[in-house]
């Protein structure tokens, strides 16, 4: 499969955000693709709060954003034949918290790959990557090959009212 251009990568990532019911529900969006690094944004909403006394976002919501960004980051790796990649494991270190009310971001890339396994790392942050709130490390198995352009033809999910 030919390499995707930067625009095509962005289109595939945006399309994934729009066909996955849970990312549609949360309003996850593409922030940036730089080389093989993908950054997604999770907009703040009251429903994501984990501690009602501080208003801080739930650790689980950070896990959702990191899992999504890390899982999709393979799209941005030019040297990889795209494939269906179920997650094997995910480890999240919670380094700190974002102030209440802030959108959070995650930046991830495949840092090593073998014929069967992708090794991925990601960081969640607010305002700038200098304010990390969590670090993720995970492995994904490479199974059946996939044509990423398939995603471009899929109908988008409707955002719930």
């Amino acid at each position: 499969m030919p390499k995707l251009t930067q625009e095509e990568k962005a289109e595939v990532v945006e399309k994934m955000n729009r066909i996955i019911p849970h990312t549609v529900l949360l309003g996850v969006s593409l922030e940036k693709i730089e080389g093989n690094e993908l950054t997604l944004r999770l907009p703040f909403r009251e429903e994501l709060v984990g501690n009602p006394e501080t208003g801080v976002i739930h650790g689980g919501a950070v896990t959702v954003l990191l899992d999504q960004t890390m899982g999709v980051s393979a799209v941005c790796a030019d040297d990889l034949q795209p494939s269906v990649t179920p997650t094997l494991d995910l480890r999240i270190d919670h380094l700190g918290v974002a102030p209440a009310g802030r959108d959070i971001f995650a930046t991830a890339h495949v840092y090593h790959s073998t014929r069967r396994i992708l090794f991925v790392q990601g960081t969640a942050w607010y305002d700038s990557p200098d304010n990390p709130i969590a670090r993720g490390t995970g492995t994904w198995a490479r199974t059946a090959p996939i044509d990423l352009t398939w995603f471009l033809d899929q109908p988008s999910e409707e955002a719930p009212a």
Partner: protein
Amino acid sequence: MNLEQLLSRKPDAETLASWLHKVPYARFLGMQADVTAGEILFILPENKQLIGNPSLPALHGGVVGAFMEQAAAFELVAKMEQPVLPKIIDFSLDYLRPVRVQTAYAKCQVTRQGKLVANVSVTTWQEDETKPNATARAHFLIPGEN
């Protein structure tokens, strides 16, 4: 009732429901709990909005993690002598089988609780408790005078 009073209640099914209701994200996921002979069963009812893989389909892996993390946190609160909301330090999740779009269950084990840190393990399954879909391990910091 403030949070401290709420967390200090006997951890029966009604109390667990009130805890889950108090946490916006747990409510958003629709989490429930049942208590039988002191053992807490955490429940994530089927909800198509939680799908992360539309082609299988399967629940979002991150949502499964969030459900398990919240379950671990409240299992810990239920076991504390002076209950407070613990803070997550790290979370390690192994995905064993896809989590299908149907109700998921979780049970937890507080492996060790110290003054400062607690270690909790979690198992999630769907139709058969002996065939777990995911297992996880979490460390929590226990805020307080330590």
